[in-house]
């Protein structure tokens, strides 16, 4: 028994973080005057229905590549749809001259772009947040089944 409990404790420590749901941080530039953002507004921004931020700048929403688990999880959390299930919506928008959010290659790319571009907004895992950006909203993601 003396061996079993420490072993169980070790398994809990090492095994659970892999499965645990890590919050998603919605971020903008550290020098932005914005402090918070509602989930409804975030949804409108990522649908490109809200185009201008409260400071009068154009929103520049950023996504990760379609296959990125973080993108898929963000999409499910925000829209209850996977990225590929939103293609019909984006085809209609494209017909009206509106393009989907810009796609960045990695979380680091999101952080770099957000820090350098007024009005941009992106999402990364909470642990990736650093002093280049500020967190507007924390999301508990819906993992893909």
């Amino acid at each position, binding site marked *: 028994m003396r061996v079993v409990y420490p072993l169980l404790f070790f398994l809990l420590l090492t095994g659970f973080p892999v499965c645990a749901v890590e919050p998603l941080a919605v971020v903008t530039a550290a020098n932005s005057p914005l402090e918070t953002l509602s989930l*409804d507004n975030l949804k*409108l921004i990522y649908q490109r*229905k*809200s*185009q*201008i931020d409260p400071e*009068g700048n*154009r929103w*520049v929403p950023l996504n990760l*590549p379609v296959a990125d688990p973080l993108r898929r999880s963000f999409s499910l959390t925000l*829209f*209850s749809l996977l990225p590929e299930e939103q*293609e*019909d919506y*984006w*085809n*209609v928008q*494209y*017909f*009206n*001259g509106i*393009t*989907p959010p*810009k*796609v*960045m*290659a*990695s979380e*680091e*790319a999101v952080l*770099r*772009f957000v820090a*350098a*571009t007024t*009005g941009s907004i992106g999402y990364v895992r909470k642990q990736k947040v650093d002093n280049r950006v500020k967190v507007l909203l924390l999301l508990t993601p819906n993992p893909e089944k």
Partner: protein
Amino acid sequence: MSLAADDADSAYRLGSGYAVDETGLRIGGYANAKIDAPRAAPFYFEVTDLSLFITWDNGSRLRFFSELEGGDVLRGGEDEALGLQYAHFEFERFYLDTLIDNNLTIRLGKFLTPIGRWNVIHAAPLVWTTSRPVATENSFSTHASGLMLHGSVMVANRQLEYSVYGDATDALDPHQSREPLNNGVGAHLRYYLDDTLQIGASFANFSLNDDLSANRHHLAGLDFSWSYQKFELSSEIVYRTSDRANVKDIWQGFAQSVMPLFSQHWFAVGRYEFFDQELDKTGQVGVLGLAYRPLPPLVWKLEYRLGTHNELLAPDGLSASFAVLF
């Protein structure tokens, strides 16, 4: 490492156009080819649309969009040789949007008349049938040229989209489309009841350029659209009345359902339409069709249409088409 190198979507992708570096320019379009085999007329093949979109949006408050459309580009059939005899080109849309704030955008130029939903998303790759419901084009002009105020506001925590427009086609669109407005005003409202259901209402007061009597029409319409997973239900209805007592009031409408079949790429489509006509009794048609979408921007369609008093506006027959958004 530069920021541009972090950008993962610079490559061309079907259905989203080609972005010209970081200029804000995007070029794309759609194409549609069909075969029509009406029951009482010879069959024919036609490249009905070849449209080129040019979008410019560099992140400022201004946004430009144009659609140059080649219509009936190539045609041939049972009793006519394949040729370019019907080809014509026009700017189907050409406008500049000025984003005032999150609730208001001002559009100046030529745009699709916001009556119902079909007319503003009518591109062949975005709709489920080769044929277009009569109610979505017969009783009004599909284009307007002038000024439009559009945007959205939140009402009871749900989005309400609006557009209000005034047309001055003669002044702004010298190369006029088929049956253009002479002048007109109108509005459309769309309310999102939830993520799957939206309802809309249209109003318009206009005269048509081709109408020599300068008759003024008043139009009211309702539309709804519901989609869940791959299922869809949609309907539009319009009522048009006129200033002159000798011009018949007309009701037109349709209801359409779409359901997935076999796999996620095959769909069954059913539609019922009715339409009052100036010179005949009320027409009615049913359309039964199949659609195969291997990718969202690409669709093959096959359908059969059958009805009564429909010879002029929606004749019986078989249609097949292929459309791609590029």
